[in-house]
């Protein structure tokens, strides 16, 4: 371990990460960290590189340069299943539920040691529909399933990519509560990419703003929430 | 002035060398190798037509031999009815290929990718079955034999006969060059670019107002008619037309030639056709365990020369 400080390492430490698809670079020199038990939001417009960053952290994309450490352990360049086994779970954009698998199969797929009963108690709706095919769920249920599926691996770091996408406002509020609860109950560290600022502010302690593949701003969530000029500048709202 | 410029300048050079090398074959090569080279040229015409489909239109046909075989049968049937004349025999091959390709294309093009591959294979095999079983027309597995080669009015006077190997080789060379030029022109024309557009992004092309199906069908029919011409030449060259010509292995071999040579280049398939034919005939006439060697070569080729022979030249 390169670090000389004896302090516990960050849950996630990303250093000068560069990644992209094919020849085109989508994310450049991104540096960010998430402490144990911390919730951090990644803000930015469509195409700013939020998803790419999360995918690269989770190992679905091979980083072109830079390092990714989970609890001080380097994972950059490892295949996604190895990253997943080191305690990272991603809830991807669009949820990517296995449509032909039942709810129960979706949940038990992950190789972790999670407890089905626990998930069903978190998401009673899933318990009721455990035999239904993934494709038969409503948008909100699918999102629950995607999160539940990620939790089955008992992750130490949860990556959420636009969880509010396509959900009704009420559902988004429920989701916000849920994420907050998860975090406190399971001691999860969370990195959430969001466009819905309300959700981001509800969940996150700190925020990073991305623009054109780079991190351009970092602030405590509370400070950013109150600074409408900054919001306008970076997010165009 | 914009079209096709980003391709490197290796092409004209390679073309010139290839043409000269081929044209000189009858002067130095032993007769047997002229024969092999003739076969390879015919096969190259066939492979080029497949490359036009595969490389430019993005349509992996696995039943292309059907048009080749149909062209051969059409030419054979006409020649056996005492029709003499190069042009009619080539034209009938092309027409037969196109005629068969139109309905097959219209049905097959409803699918894409691997399903298209299988559907064209299915149609190819059905035609093969027809060739085997329609004995009154095709004489079944025995095939039509004793097909005469046409006489050429001008050449007759000079006492040159297509029965001679050299002149026939040159005939094939000329047809091959014409095919190359035609396909090259098509590939660079608006039509070819449209096909490439459809291959890359059919949705976009439709949004721009291109009826993609018609373009693909046109490409399929063109490729079919050129395969038919190759079939005509094959019938004249060999003097026979048998169901073997339509069998899927012939389609497979052509695909191999395209892949070995390098798709979307038109030159690649020519190189590939020569490589495959010389590989197969050369090996099989000299070495007993030729299948083993050829198979190993294919495997090595895929692993070590991923972009085809043309890729090697391009890199150099």
């Amino acid at each position: 371990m390169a670090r000389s400080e004896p302090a516990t390492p960050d849950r996630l430490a990303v250093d000068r990460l560069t990644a992209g698809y094919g020849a085109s670079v989508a994310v450049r020199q991104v540096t960010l960290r998430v402490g144990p038990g911390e919730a951090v939001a990644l803000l930015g417009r469509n195409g700013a590189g939020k998803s790419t960053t999360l995918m690269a952290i989770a190992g679905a994309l091979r980083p072109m340069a830079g390092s990714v450490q989970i609890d001080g352990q380097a994972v950059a360049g490892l295949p996604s299943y190895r990253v997943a086994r080191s305690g990272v779970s991603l809830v991807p954009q669009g949820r990517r539920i296995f449509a032909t698998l039942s709810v129960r199969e979706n949940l038990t797929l992950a190789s972790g040691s999670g407890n089905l009963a626990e998930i069903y108690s978190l998401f009673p709706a899933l318990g009721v529909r455990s035999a239904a095919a993934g494709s038969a769920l409503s948008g909100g249920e699918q999102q629950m399933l995607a999160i539940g599926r990620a939790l089955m691996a008992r992750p130490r770091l949860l990556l959420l990519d636009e969880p509010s996408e396509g959900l009704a406002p009420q559902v988004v509020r429920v989701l916000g509560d849920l994420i907050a609860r998860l975090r406190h109950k399971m001691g999860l560290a969370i990195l959430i990419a969001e466009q819905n600022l309300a959700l981001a502010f509800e969940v996150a302690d700190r925020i990073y703003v991305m623009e054109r593949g780079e991190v351009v701003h970092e602030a405590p969530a509370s400070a950013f929430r109150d600074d409408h000029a900054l919001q306008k500048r970076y997010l165009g709202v | 002035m914009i079209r096709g410029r980003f391709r490197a300048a290796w092409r004209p050079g390679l073309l010139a060398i290839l043409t000269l090398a081929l044209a000189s074959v009858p002067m130095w090569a032993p007769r047997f190798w002229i024969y092999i080279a003739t076969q390879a040229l015919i096969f190259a015409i066939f492979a080029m037509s497949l490359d036009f489909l595969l490389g430019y239109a993005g349509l992996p046909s696995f039943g292309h031999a059907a048009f080749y075989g149909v062209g051969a049968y059409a030419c054979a049937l006409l020649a056996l009815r005492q029709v003499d004349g190069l042009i009619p025999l080539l034209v009938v091959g092309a027409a037969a290929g196109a005629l068969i390709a139109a309905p097959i294309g219209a049905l097959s093009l409803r699918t894409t990718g691997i399903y298209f591959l299988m559907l064209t294979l299915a149609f190819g095999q059905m035609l093969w079955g027809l060739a085997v079983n329609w004995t009154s027309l095709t004489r079944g597995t025995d095939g039509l034999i004793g097909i005469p080669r046409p006489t050429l009015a001008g050449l007759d006077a000079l006492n040159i006969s297509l029965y001679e190997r050299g002149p026939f080789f040159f005939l094939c060379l000329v047809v091959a060059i014409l095919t190359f030029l035609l396909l090259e022109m098509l590939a660079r024309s608006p039509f070819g670019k449209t096909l490439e557009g459809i291959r890359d992004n059919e949705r976009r092309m439709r949004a721009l107002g291109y009826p993609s199906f018609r373009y693909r069908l046109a490409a399929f029919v063109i490729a079919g008619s050129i395969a038919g011409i190759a079939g005509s030449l094959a019938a004249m060259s060999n003097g026979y037309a048998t169901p073997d010509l339509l069998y899927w292995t012939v389609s497979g071999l052509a695909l191999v030639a395209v892949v070995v040579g390098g798709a979307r280049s038109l030159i690649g398939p020519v190189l590939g056709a020569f490589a495959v034919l010389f590989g197969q005939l050369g090996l099989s006439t000299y070495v007993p365990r030729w299948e083993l060697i050829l198979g190993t070569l294919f495997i090595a080729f895929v692993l070590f020369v991923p972009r085809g022979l043309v890729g090697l030249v391009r890199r150099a």
Partner: protein
Amino acid sequence: MFLLAAGLSIIFGLMNVLNLAHGSFYMVGAYIAYSVVVATKSFWLALVVAPVLLAVVGAALELVFFRRVYGRGHLAQVLLTFGFTLVFVDLIRSQFGPTTRSIPPPSGLEGAVQVLGATFSAYSLFVLAVATVVGALLLVGWRSLRVGAVLRAGVEDKEMAGLLGINLPRVFTLTFAFGAGLAGLAGVIAAPEFAIYPGMDANVLILALVVVVLGGLGSIEGALLGAALVGLGYVIGTSLFPQFAIGLIFALMAAVLVVRPSGLLGRRM
């Protein structure tokens, strides 16, 4: 036929690899059966040995060769696996010679049986039974075992499966091995029923491809349905045009694909 198609379908659907060498696995399976029967007189031993050996061969090939051509498109795979078919057929010929071989059905399964007034050979019924049992097992496994769920997940969304901590490279290797093993099993089962000769691979490969495509890629149910249809089509075809039953099967496939471009139970790819 179903066994072969199921193996092919799994390999093809899940891994998106067009494996022409699948027929070769079948042929090698039949020859292993022949060798084992000649050496030990035990068909049942062959039934165990051949699939295991072929699974090992399949795994080795996947690790050494196929792994490198994922993502290189079907054509590279076709060329590679076509190369393997040539190698296999020549190796078999150099080892066993070009003669046709055959082995008798295992004792107890010789002779004919009357079923509903029609005569069947006992062994044909055995083949049918094995295919049904294996098909049912596969279907059950596919539907209700975690492995089945993992495979289906892999077919649907490879990247997501990886993100869930599934070791896809290993799953691929095992899948390939399993597919090869199924082909080997099919080879053993077919050995007493059909003749064993170099070249038997190509004949069966095309049919297996038809079954897979007819049913739809990456679907065990599809392979099952496809096999049943092809089997039926063949029987009907033989009685209608004995010369060209295979043509009827191709026509069947063509008709299905024209109406349903992704096969009967296939997804759009």
